[in-house]
């Protein structure tokens, strides 16, 4: 089973991104400049990548084992869209990264999948305290999950990653792998369930399927039956209760935005409430 996500565009986008073929000087070893590609781009374009604690854990592993030069090139790759696609399946992340060769490199990152017995034990442990599912469902990885797993002798985050890349660089992780890891970390920010999915349990399996609420839909009376009052309202609209504005930026607190956007958007939310009182819409007479 594989969870494919992040296939940008309609498929034409990233492949068409390979323009021209400046082959490296020595014919096969990668030259300094990668080919232009329009793949996945890291959202954070500056500073460190990974804004939640659980995605930082992957970055930490990476930054522990990788040398500085490859790290920074990997980050640059992640930001310029060299990673063409990325698939996550239980135990395996595969990605294609556009390097300097015409043919993109294939990156594979393996992780141990928990066995069925382990998972049923973990599921029981998670279910024992509602707070874990509550946090997961609200979109965050509970910090205690890691301790909880550890208490049962299980690592949520691997000490080491089994990394593989089809590039000729001898060193592991190479910049292609680090680029993929950066992007992987960012995707964990958005959906903590992916961490668990990599370990072999999807959100659906863990919690059962969720209902996706759609936009409210209203059944309209056909025009044919509304000819007599074509220009008139179909019903009265109860006046909405006038609610005092909540503390500024409440939405950002209840639903944290992706990446580091919270602090960048906060000024906007602060300006929306309260002070703009002079612009209150006039009531109709």
């Amino acid at each position, binding site marked *: 089973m594989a969870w494919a996500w992040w296939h940008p565009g309609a498929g034409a986008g990233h492949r068409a991104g390979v323009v021209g073929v400046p082959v490296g000087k020595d014919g096969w070893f990668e030259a300094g400049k990668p080919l232009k590609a329009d793949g996945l781009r890291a959202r954070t374009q500056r500073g460190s990548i990974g804004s939640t604690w659980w995605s930082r854990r992957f970055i930490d592993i990476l930054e522990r084992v990788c040398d500085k030069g490859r790290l920074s090139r990997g980050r640059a790759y992640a930001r310029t869209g060299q990673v063409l696609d990325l698939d996550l399946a239980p135990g395996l992340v595969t990605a294609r990264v556009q390097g300097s060769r015409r043919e993109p490199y294939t990156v594979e990152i393996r992780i141990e999948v928990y066995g069925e017995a382990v998972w049923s034990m973990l599921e029981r442990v998670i279910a024992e305290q509602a707070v874990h599912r509550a946090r997961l469902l609200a979109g965050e990885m509970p910090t205690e999950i890691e301790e909880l797993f550890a208490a049962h002798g299980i690592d949520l985050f691997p000490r080491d990653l089994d990394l593989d890349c089809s590039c000729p660089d001898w060193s592991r992780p190479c910049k292609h792998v680090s680029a993929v890891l950066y992007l992987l970390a960012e995707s964990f920010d958005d959906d903590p369930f992916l961490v668990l999915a990599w370990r072999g349990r999807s959100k659906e399996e863990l919690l059962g399927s969720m209902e996706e609420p759609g936009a409210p839909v209203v059944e309209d009376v056909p025009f044919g039956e509304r000819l007599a009052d*074509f*220009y*008139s309202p179909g019903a009265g609209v109860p006046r909405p209760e006038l609610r005092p504005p909540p503390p500024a930026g409440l939405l950002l607190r209840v639903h944290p935005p992706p990446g580091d956007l919270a602090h960048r958007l906060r000024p906007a939310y602060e300006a929306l409430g309260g002070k703009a009182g002079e612009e209150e*819409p006039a009531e109709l007479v």
Partner: protein
Amino acid sequence: MPSPETGLLPTTSRPALRPWRVPALLPHPAQTLRLLSETLHLLAESTITATLRHWSAVAAFAHDLVRRGRVIPQLTGESAQPVDMWSIPEATAEARWFPVLTGADAAHFRDLAVAMPPACRTGAEEHPSSAVLTDALATFTDAAVRARLTEPLAVRPKTLEDRWLAALTGPDAACPDIPELRRSLNAWREAAGAEGATQVCFRLVEPPAPTPPATPDLDQEEPWWRVELALQPLDDPSLRVPADQIWSGAPIPGLPPRADHELLAGLGRALRLYPALDQALRTAHPTELLLDTAGAFTFLRQAAPLLHAAGFVVQLPRWAGRSKLGLKLTTRTKKQQAATSQGFGLRQLVDFKVELAVGDATITEAELTELARLKVPLVRVRGQWVELDERQLKAALRAVETRREGELTAAEILQHVIQGDDGELPLVEVDADGVLGDLLSGTADRRLTPIPTPPGLDAVLRPYQERGLAWLSFLSELGLGGVLADDMGLGKTVATLSLLVHEKSGRPTLLVCPMSLIGNWQREAARFAPGLRVHVHHGASRDPAKLTDADLVITTYGTAQRDLDTLKQVAWRRVVCDEAQAIKNSGTLQAQAVRSITAETRLALTGTPVENHLAELWSIMEFCNPGLLGSKQRFRTRFQEPIEARQDAQAEQALKRATGPFVLRRLKTDKSIISDLPEKLEVKEWCTLTPEQASLYQAVVDDMMGKIDGSEGIERRGLVLAAMAKLKQVCNHPAHLLKDGSRLAGRSGKLARTEELAAEILAEGEKGLLFTQYSEYGSMLQPYLAQRLDRPVLWLHGGLPKKTRDRLVERFQHDDEPMLFLLSLKAAGVGLNLTAANHVIHLDRWWNPAVEDQATDRAFRIGQRKNVQVRKLICAGTLEERIDEMIERKKALAERVVGTGEDWLTDLSTAELREVFRLGSGAVA
């Protein structure tokens, strides 16, 4: 088909659908929003159509969402071309703000979609209303955010993300596409909007009262408070499903299938705002959070408001936010004193005592000291929980140091009760005995000895009217002003007249009313109080000399303002403001003028529920008892803001105490009143003509009488009927006769009265039927009234297919919103059951009482549990009044003489007709 606002009548009675090409203007969103929300009221009335009003409601919704921060930024549109790495990315996408619709907002969205007039969603095909509304609301929301954000979010953008942020403000939304950002923003929006069809509820439950029942001292043990967890569907807040039921896993009707996930996800979000919730979620199936008293206080003061603002349902004990420390005033009447009215006078001395109170109980100094020592913010005093804050405790400690007991005059006590608080400590309870107690409790009308119908009043007062007269007379004798705010139909006019007759003061009363009511006052006075000398001070022939010779001087608000200097020179016994909503805006010249006329006592009459319009209440009270409620500013901070913004129960109580003594408002639905009322009350409403109506009327009479004079037989009958029809149309409205689609406002006395009556009905939250025999008049009125009253006005006429009629009737009967149903007399034949209405207004007269009665019976039928009020509008001094008199005179014979049609009128001689049609002197106000 023309839209009703054009004033044009449809040329076809059976319209059908056909494609129609119309020129369209694509306005700029920001300008449109400005037009809809700020300047719409500046437009001419005829251009404000129902569709425009609907968009205005959508715009208001967008503003409200933005004000509350229920918006989320997005990156929309995908790049069509792969971006060239080496060039500056092109701005192929847009940064846009979208609304986040959850909870009550999602419900309001649905209401707006259902209400959308079909004309709003036309196009090559019928667009679904929800799709049209989604687009419009998104457009308005984006424009409203941009209007408010004046500072850019990113200066000198470097990265692509910066460029997106920069494009979120200012007029230009274009920016390069960043697919990853686009997707994660989209996921964010989904998460924020996925609060589902349910809301998580938190209900704070106080610890059980200790057994045995509390001893009078303070309870000091640490009890556990509980916050119960539950889930409730958005569309049915009455269904509150406790968490343990959710965990059972059984499907619950009314809740989505995976209700447990909704509850969990909601709790997960709530954790971010209220971390203490964590301890409750340490079991597999949490049902409640246990809190100690300090924790409960934190929940009350901090978590509850935050959770509520974030869309959670929070239920607090009834006392929360209201049972605070306060003062209690006790007064006791002394014996043997001279009294002026019903054994009471304002200069009378009473004993008084001020104590500290908490809820219903008073506490001693020792208890207070003990409370202060405990240093807990929530304490139970005699079985009742009380929130204490530091400031209040200090104020209370200061207060007990100064013992407050002694003697004051009744007037001073009154002043004290109305002015209320003592800085930090509000006056929470008043215990007064005797007449002063009755006055302060606002129940004087029930305690005073009723005054029977005074000799000279040509009517028999009903028991509630006798009590009303006692109250009016009591306040007058004390020199206090009153507001008589009885429901319409309970007879405020008769009450006022009976007061004048009863009082026989010898000095004149000045009555100020809207022009549309002058005729009515004149006729009612003549009918019920024939002994009163009535003078109308209005129009070109007004004479200052006559003011002092009358018992009752009637004038209009406009004239009062114009002749202020003259009116000020008279020593008035009383000034009465009828339809006192006219002075609701205290700053207007009209209100200032009326206030500046001095009198011994004042009275305001109003049919609108004053307690719902606080700014209005202040202005009216300021007229009745100048200065008593304090300045407008103080009134606003002390009552209006706490009540309107926070539904502060204590402020509401205080306001009731301050105004209760001066406001008498009785509802038709009161048990004590309803038994006094007849089931069907028929009233004639006298209207006046505007000068335009009068001159048109005269022109029609001159023209038609000339023709009738020289004709006979069938031709003559035709002409007479035509003349009558035209005159009745003039009485309705000049535009009704002219059929020129011209403006309606301010040109007809009858229409003005119709509007006032309709507004009163709607303000009382009721429904009314309006009958006219002219469907073209109904077609003119419908859009006009709908717009002026901002409530639904349904219109049933002969041109409607059965299906539509049924839908209208269905809506009128079952929709809870107050509304009007305009019906053409002919179309509203038998078979209609409109018992949701308890008001009937006949806009024009059908000279056959049987037909009118049949129409009236639409509302007055078996199943009607309310009293029905029937009003017939009659233009004074016109054929309407004359024929009404004839019908009255011949009442017994009416059926036979009048027959079923209006034909009997055609048999009148030309001289008789001249008399019937003549424009009387009192016709024009």
